[in-house]
Structures are given as structure tokens and as C-alpha cells.
């Protein structure tokens, strides 16, 4: 498999534009091309070869027969996917969790950024920023550990508070009714502070004269926010929204996998965790490759729709 890579690169070389100029350019800047070679080989081997390997979604892949020996089954794996109640349940989980994330987690950094922007004491603003960015740099295992500790039915602080009010302890991670809230909530805790950076940067670039003029005209701060601040950051919000839509199904394996267990997986399992369990552990290679391919294609379609909408709305696209 590795020997395919250099072959592919050298095959790409003669395809340079305008042969003579291309060849002399190649000779003159040989060093530049050589420097870029390892990186290009990296993308071929670790990004394009797996894409090529995705053809196993159309096979009934057998480890002993390999890619060439395994029988081709057309769209059977995809048909199988949509007739499995289990797959449909996981798809529902993935879409619902993604949807909750969009509704509840997406607006939080915007609100935080607007509020932080209203702070007048610069030092205090700095301190708060330092504090709210920190959780972004913690790993999901650590956040999982912290949350499990806080939510523990015996030693967790949340249940102690509940008990103090005479309520019974709740085993938050041992029931399927809380898992989606926990997944979305921990995401808000981890990344909403970090998410403010982009919006704060957009806010910082608003011309202060606009506010001055508004103040002279007697506009209240609320009015200034509505008429100056929000329109100013709307393009940023649009771009962030589109990026979010494009990653809709990529909720994140690492996040879900620390919280999901056999007691809550009926509502917490998503495509990525399902692919890991059924694909890598149970070795249903072709079936889970089909699921992965389905996920990538949906993602691509979402990005393209988002880009078209963005170009129509603001004249600017992601690519």
C-alpha cells in the first residue's frame, strides 16, 4: 500500500500546465517541490487512500480475501442500514443531539460576547476571558471525570443539594432521560467561552464613531446594540452558523464516548460511537463503512447547501 503513494505523485507531475514552462519551472524551483513532497505524500496516504478504501462499503469485505477478493454487493450495505431499526434509532439520536446543540449551544457564545463587550472595566474583562477560555483546553476524559464526580448519586455535589432539599438522589448517567442534556450541557461548559473569541474580534472591529453618533442622537444602549452591534457581527454569525451546519453530524466521538454506557446508550449513542462499536469491535467492516460514507455524503451536501445560502445572502461563501 505505501508504494502506491510515490507512484501517484510522479503521475501527477507531467500534468503540469504548459509543458516547457512547467518543466523549466520545475527544474528551477526543484527545492520547493521537494520540500512540499512529504506533506503531499501525507495527504495521499492518510486522506486519499482511505477514501479509495471506502469502496469496501460496496463490498462484503472479508479480511482474508482483502479488497480484490471480497465480493461486490452494490448498495446492499446501504439498504441493510435503512432496514435496521437499531441504525434508525442511532440516526435519530445523532440528528436530535445535533439539533439540540444547534438550538441551545450555538447562541450562547454570541450572548456571552455581547455581554462581555458591554463590560467597561478592561482588567475585569481580561480576567473573565482568561477564566471562560480555560475549559476549552481540557480533554473530554477530564470533563467526563469531573461531571461523573459532580453527578455521582452518592458523593456528587448535585445530589447532595437535591438531598438537602429533601429530594431523592438521581443517578444522572444511569438513566437514558438525562444523557442528551448532559452531552449538550457539557459542550456549552467546555466551548462557549472559547466561542466568544471570534465574536469579540468582530465586535472590536466595529467603528467606535458609530456609537458616538448614536449616543449624540440619544439612542439608548439597547438601541445601539440592536442597530449597530448586531448588524456588525451578523456576517460572523452567518459564517459560524454555516460551519456548524456543515459539521452537524460530527458531534464528536470523544465527547459522547466518555458519557455513554449500557444504561443510557438507547438515547445517547450516535453514529460515531456506533461505527466504533459495531465496526471496529464487532468487525462489521463493510456495513459501518457504508454508514460512515453516508455520514460524509450528508456532511458534504450540508456544506454545499450552506455555502450556496451564504453566497446568496451575503455574497461570501466558505470556499
Amino acid at each position, binding site marked *: 500500500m505505501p508504494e502506491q503513494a510515490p507512484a501517484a505523485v510522479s503521475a501527477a507531475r507531467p500534468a503540469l500546465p504548459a509543458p516547457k514552462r512547467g518543466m523549466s519551472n520545475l527544474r528551477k524551483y526543484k527545492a*520547493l517541490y521537494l520540500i512540499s513532497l512529504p506533506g503531499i505524500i501525507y495527504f495521499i496516504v492518510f486522506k486519499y487512500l482511505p477514501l479509495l478504501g471506502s469502496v469496501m462499503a460496496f463490498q462484503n469485505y472479508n479480511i482474508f480475501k482483502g479488497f480484490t477478493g471480497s465480493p461486490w454487493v452494490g448498495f446492499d450495505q446501504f439498504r441493510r442500514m435503512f432496514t435496521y431499526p437499531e441504525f434508525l434509532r442511532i440516526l435519530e439520536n445523532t440528528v436530535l443531539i445535533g439539533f439540540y446543540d444547534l438550538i441551545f449551544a450555538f447562541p450562547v457564545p454570541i450572548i456571552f460576547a455581547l455581554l462581555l463587550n458591554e463590560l467597561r472595566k478592561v482588567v475585569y474583562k481580561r480576567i473573565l476571558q482568561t477564566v471562560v477560555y480555560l475549559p476549552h483546553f481540557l480533554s473530554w476524559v477530564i470533563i467526563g471525570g469531573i461531571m461523573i464526580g459532580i453527578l455521582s448519586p452518592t*458523593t456528587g455535589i448535585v445530589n447532595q443539594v437535591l438531598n438537602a432539599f429533601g429530594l431523592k438522589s438521581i443517578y444522572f448517567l444511569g438513566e437514558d432521560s438525562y444523557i442528551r442534556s448532559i452531552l449538550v450541557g457539557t459542550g456549552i461548559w467546555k466551548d462557549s467561552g472559547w466561542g466568544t473569541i471570534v465574536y469579540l474580534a468582530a465586535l472590536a472591529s466595529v467603528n467606535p464613531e458609530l456609537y458616538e453618533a448614536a449616543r449624540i442622537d440619544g439612542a439608548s444602549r439597547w438601541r445601539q446594540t440592536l442597530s449597530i452591534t448586531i448588524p456588525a457581527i451578523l456576517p460572523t454569525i452567518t459564517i459560524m452558523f454555516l460551519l456548524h451546519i456543515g459539521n452537524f453530524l460530527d458531534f464528536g466521538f*470523544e465527547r459522547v464516548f466518555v458519557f455513554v454506557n449500557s444504561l443510557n446508550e438507547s438515547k445517547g449513542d450516535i453514529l460515531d460511537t456506533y461505527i466504533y462499536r459495531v465496526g*471496529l469491535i464487532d468487525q462489521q467492516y463493510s456495513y459501518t463503512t457504508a454508514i*460512515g460514507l453516508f455520514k460524509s455524503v450528508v456532511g458534504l451536501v450540508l456544506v454545499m447547501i450552506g455555502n450556496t445560502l451564504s453566497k446568496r445572502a451575503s455574497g461570501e461563501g466558505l470556499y
Partner: protein
Amino acid sequence: MKNKGGLFDGFNYIFLTLVGCLMVFPLLHVLAKSFSSSQAINAGKVRLIPVDWTLTNYHVILGDSSIWRAFMVSVFITVAGTLINLILTASLAYPLSRPEYSMRKVVLIFILITMIFQAPLIPNYMVIKNLHLIDSLWALIIPSAISAYNLFIMRSFFVALPSELIDSARIDGAGELRTMWSVILPLSKPAMATMGLFYAVSHWNSYSSALYFINNRALYPLQLRLREIVLSNDLGQAGNLLENVNEISPAGVQMAVIIVSVVPIIIVYPFLQKYFIKGMLIGSIKA
């Protein structure tokens, strides 16, 4: 009117302060528990300050060789991985920033495609397997050698450098490699530092690739070992060290392991803070 604004300001300060507390209190709570006795933890007395101050939880970790091995594995992956990240990212970003590199457009599109259409997990696994990287620490380093996103950020940084620098280096007779090494890279120290920190943090925090590609438990990085301890209530070796199980709360040990794996992040955090806003801004402008 003025009064109204004052009311809002007061509310805003209080609200944001509460948000700030919500961000740090869980960590302080963990820290407090890691220094508390099991009786205090089980009785639910520990809030933000350790109760019955003790170092027992840390002694248990110190005595567990599997945790230290995992720690060293993570250090190796982070250091070697970040070096490879920086070398490969810079060596592809630099040619892509030069107009003389005539394949520029083709290569950029070729990389962009990998960002918007990703291969599923299993074919990725097959590539790693066929390269005989399963159960090798290189499987945690090489497959993530370049982040396309970081590559684009670094390229836009190189593009922004004045081209006169390259011209004058050429007049002085420097070759391409030499120009990159002694003119471009020294000027890019802040950019490289930012990117290195981001790469390092993601190496340190990641556990999914180890879960996919490492079966040998002796090669588990810290996050994966931590996951076992925290999530499976499996104290492994540490559990056997407990002479009197009632004396040491697993919760306390779990919290101590969390603290041990957070400390390196807290140490680099001031540096991250110094650079990341700049880094994010370059990224967001070109995104």
C-alpha cells in the same frame, strides 16, 4: 436613562461573574476532593476547600507504575508529535505560499477536499493496519501529522511576509531550503509557537486514536488510562495497593489523577493565552 444603564451594568457584572464561577468551580471542587480524606468526601463535606487535608490520594498514584508509564507515553507523543506536526506543516505551507510554485492551486484544492469530505473510520483503520502501525505509538503521531486547517493558517502567515525578504536572500545566493530555514522560519517564531501549542494540546488531550489503534495496554497514553480509572471505576494496580479499602476513597484517587493530567495544560495555559487570540484571528480572517 443613566440609572437604567447602571442597573443593566450591575446585572451584567453579577451575571458574568456567576458564569466565570461556573467555569472554575468544578475544577476547584476536583482539586479540593483530591486533597481530602475519603470520610469527608463520602460524607459530602467537601466543597471548594479540602477537608481533612491529606496527600494519600497522590501517594496512591505515585505508587502506580501504570499511571507513570501512561504519563511518559503521553509526553513522548506530545513532544515527538508536535515536532513532526510543525516540520511537515511548515514544509508544505511554505511552498504553497510562493507564487513560483506552479502547482499551488491544484495542491490547495487537493487539500481542501480532504477537509470537506472525510473518509470513514474503517478505511482509515485499514490504512494504519496495512502500514503495520497498529500497536505502535507512531499510529498516534503520523496519521495526524498535518492539520489542513493549521496548514492554511500557516500558509496565510507566510503569504503575509514581505516578498523582498525572499528576493534579497536569493540575491545573496541562498537556495530555497536555506531561505526557508534562515529567513522565513526565524521570522515565523510566534506563528510556530502558537501552532505548536495548539498541536501539543490536541496530542495531550486526544484519546480516540489510541482507542482505535492501540491494543497493548502498556502503550496506553494518559487520557486512555485516565478513562479506565475514572469511567470504569477500575483502579487496577492502584486498587491492589490499598491496604484498607475503607481508608481511601476511589473518588479521591480519581480526582487526583484528573489533577495530574490537568497540570501540564495549566502550565502552558498562560502561553496559549498569549498567542491564541492572534492565531484565532489569522484563522478567522482567512476561513
